[in-house]
């Protein structure tokens, strides 16, 4: 995958990542956290959002609108490389906090699909089952796995 991304930091356990979004709204600190959510098969949940000043905690209540959606998504996708290099090639579960947020994720995946599909299998949950990602379908959640 050869997409423009931000430099990002990882903790020593490679399950927490941080980077800065740069855009019209300024520098916004972002965080990614992978957490084990299922053992058979192994699935990790991906939590992503802004790291708010003061609390130093991840939250996605704010829509940043920093005009860098694709670059942010590419950065998050790159953290999956680092994470799976250290934890094994397992499924990563992701969904937005709201249907609108999930739709934003879907738009981002669609926008970068030519590059994302080179390295990742992406499944979407729709109509009661997990299906191969299609750009014209609204999904409730996503499962991502490296090829």
């Amino acid at each position, binding site marked *: 995958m050869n997409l423009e*991304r*931000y*430099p*990002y*930091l*990882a*903790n*020593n*356990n*490679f*399950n*927490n*990542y*941080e*980077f*800065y979004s*740069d855009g019209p709204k300024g*520098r916004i600190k972002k*965080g990614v*956290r992978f*957490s084990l*959510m*299922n053992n058979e*098969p192994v*699935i990790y*949940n991906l*939590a992503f*959002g802004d*790291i708010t000043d003061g609390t*130093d*905690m*991840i*939250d*996605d*209540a704010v829509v940043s609108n920093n005009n860098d959606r694709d670059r942010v998504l590419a950065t998050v996708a*790159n*953290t999956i*490389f*680092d994470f*799976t*290099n*250290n934890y094994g*090639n397992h*499924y990563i*579960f992701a*969904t937005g*906090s709201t249907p609108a947020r999930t739709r934003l994720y879907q738009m981002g995946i669609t926008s970068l699909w030519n590059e994302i599909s080179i*390295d990742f*299998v992406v*499944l979407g*949950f729709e109509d*009661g*089952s*997990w*299906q191969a990602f299609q750009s014209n379908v609204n999904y*409730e*959640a996503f*499962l991502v796995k*490296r090829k």
Partner: protein
Amino acid sequence: MSNFEIKKGVIMPAVKKATVNEKGYYGNAIVSDKVKDHGNDPFVVKKLEEAKAFLRKNGLNGLPDLKK
């Protein structure tokens, strides 16, 4: 200047650690002890519980190659 550029005369705790797996993929993360563990952040905990509930409710029907 990039966010993580090394400043002259400043000791930086971050080290580049490129990892590679059997397929030859390299990670790009810069390891830093300044990165907090967000595992107990309320949003992260809530998202994890919601994800588990989603899986309990909807299952994994349609998921290919579970054994890989």
